[in-house]
């Protein structure tokens, strides 16, 4: 085990090269719906139990199924109303189980990125070969069902190995060259995109995905009220919008159809979306487009600035 994952250097949030977004926007705003499949009776992982009880663990299984049966369409319609294309963090087995959801999102030109095969299959304990096979399977599934070359990764149930990001980037290159596997949502160290050091030397970025604004963290971990969640979303936006005037920022709302799409929560969520998209200098976009823009326009300057600051500090 390592003291530090080694993906990035310390890089203070001041005096950085300026990030600019298309059309002079101050902030890049994206919504990342997690569309997940949890298995009723998954095989046992030695490091993490999928459910608190033996199968059937009805409370957990059935509310997640609610997300797909009921919640998905509600959130999809709401995002459409505000001109937002979702960037889907996808349990890719869902392409097989629920192709209707995939078709509806594809029709709306949403992005699909890999969130593993099932959210009940964890990376813990896998050999490199196994993790590589799982990642490859997930990226291939997205390609064969949607034609999209998967660009982003959020490890299934946020279960990682030391090699996760390397493997994802390498499989992406093998499958799709520079069009695949170039950003991660797994790291929460910044409000701007940052270069990630990989063993392959591939140009690769961390795109802020925000656990703090994640509805499951808000509702199931922090257990806050629906209207307070909307308030936090607005406060987060206000600050990043103000800071984005001098250097471009990113705001992500990661969601789950079984959380935010419950009838008692959607009204408050809609208020926040209406507020955010009602501002003029907002680039409403997807994770892939943010990462592409950063890698093409700002990555080199960022790498040079980090190296320069490190050299001066030492």
């Amino acid at each position: 085990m390592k003291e530090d994952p080694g993906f990035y250097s310390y890089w203070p949030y001041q005096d950085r090269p300026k990030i600019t977004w298309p059309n002079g926007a101050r902030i890049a705003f994206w919504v990342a719906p997690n569309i997940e499949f949890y298995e009723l009776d998954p095989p046992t992982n030695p490091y993490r139990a999928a459910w608190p009880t033996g199968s059937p663990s009805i409370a957990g299984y059935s509310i997640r199924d609610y997300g797909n049966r009921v919640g998905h369409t509600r959130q999809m319609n709401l995002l459409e109303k505000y001109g937002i294309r979702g960037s889907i963090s996808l349990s890719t087995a869902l392409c097989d189980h629920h192709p209707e959801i995939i078709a509806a999102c594809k029709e709306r030109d949403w992005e699909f990125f890999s969130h593993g095969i099932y959210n009940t299959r964890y990376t813990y304990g896998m050999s490199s070969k196994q993790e590589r096979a799982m990642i490859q399977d997930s990226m291939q599934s997205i390609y064969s069902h949607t034609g999209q070359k998967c660009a982003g990764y959020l490890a299934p149930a946020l279960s990682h190995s030391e090699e996760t990001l390397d493997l994802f980037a390498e499989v992406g290159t093998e499958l799709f060259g520079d069009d695949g596997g170039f950003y991660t949502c797994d790291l929460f160290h910044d409000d701007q995109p940052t270069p990630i050091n990989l063993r392959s030397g591939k140009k690769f970025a961390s795109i802020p995905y925000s656990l703090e604004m994640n509805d499951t963290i808000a509702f199931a971990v922090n257990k806050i009220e629906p209207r307070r969640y909307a308030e936090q979303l607005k406060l987060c936006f206000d600050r990043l919008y103000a800071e984005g005037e001098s250097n471009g920022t990113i705001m992500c709302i990661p969601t789950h159809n079984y959380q935010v799409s419950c009838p008692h929560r959607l009204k408050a969520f809609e208020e926040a979306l209406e507020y955010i998209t009602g501002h003029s200098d907002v680039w409403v976009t997807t994770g892939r487009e943010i990462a592409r823009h950063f890698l093409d326009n700002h990555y080199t300057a960022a790498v040079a600035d980090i190296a320069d600051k490190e050299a001066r500090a030492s």
Partner: protein
Amino acid sequence: MSQDKSKKTELPADYLTYAHRDYGMDHQRYPWSMLTDRAPVTWPDNKQLALWVNVPLQYFPLNQGGVPFKVPGGMTMPYPDLRHYSLRDYGNRVGLFRFLRAFDRFGVKPTFAVNTRLVERTPYLSRLLKERDDEIICHGYHMDALHYAGQDPTAEADLVARSLDSLRELSGQQITGWLSPAKNESENTPDILAKHGIEYFCDWVNDDMPYDFQTSTTPLIAMPLSTELEDRFVIQNNLHSEASWCEQVRDACDFLLNEASNEGGRILALNVHPWLLGQPHRIGYLEQALDYISTKPEVWSASAGDIKTHWAKQQQPAG
């Protein structure tokens, strides 16, 4: 590439094989179906929102066994946990009567989910419920008599039989609805319920509308009793204020009414506990919520069984 160097472990091969990775669900209990793909449902008099107020009347034994877990709301202290025993009992002695006044004031038709052991122990309640004649569904034997994964099927069938036989006798009702204590089930619970005359159950929270649920004999109907909006979850688990619970109920009511106007009848299911909302400082918020909902002309207040029946009648294949 050196990707094989850093990891020394390997999982069994079945961890990367996916036996159920195919169209639909990963089990045979119900088919995959999105709510928006189903035919719209209508309620009597063209109402749009069915209000199902579900009132669990629960008995938490002092000598809790906690098998296989301590039921939420149950005893937490070393024996004898007088504090939780008596605080839960409060609901059946005091809180319930505040509920009944509120229901009658706002024209709400409640459904009582009753632990059989409670009416065995309290003939007064048994008689009261009989006189009111609101629908009673079985909430299991008592809160410590859990149904759980790996439970012996014969023992579970005996438990179901004892719970239903006694409740049917004491209530004089047929008892066709079921709510498991803690909404927990074994892999056999639905099959056992169907064999004992149960027609619908309320444990699964994967829908906002009823749906058919396969068993080894007659299918059950799964009725959608939201956990996320129930008083215990919002107030006791999430620690939200009573005012916030009331606001969440109003928001849900507005949202579902709007959805119903476009997509057909919906159900607002409120699971409310007399030992929680029946407290003097909380009852006003239940009243506020019921006041708000009952002033909506599109709302149909009905028992779980009536909602189920009206839904089921519209599921017959046409022609």
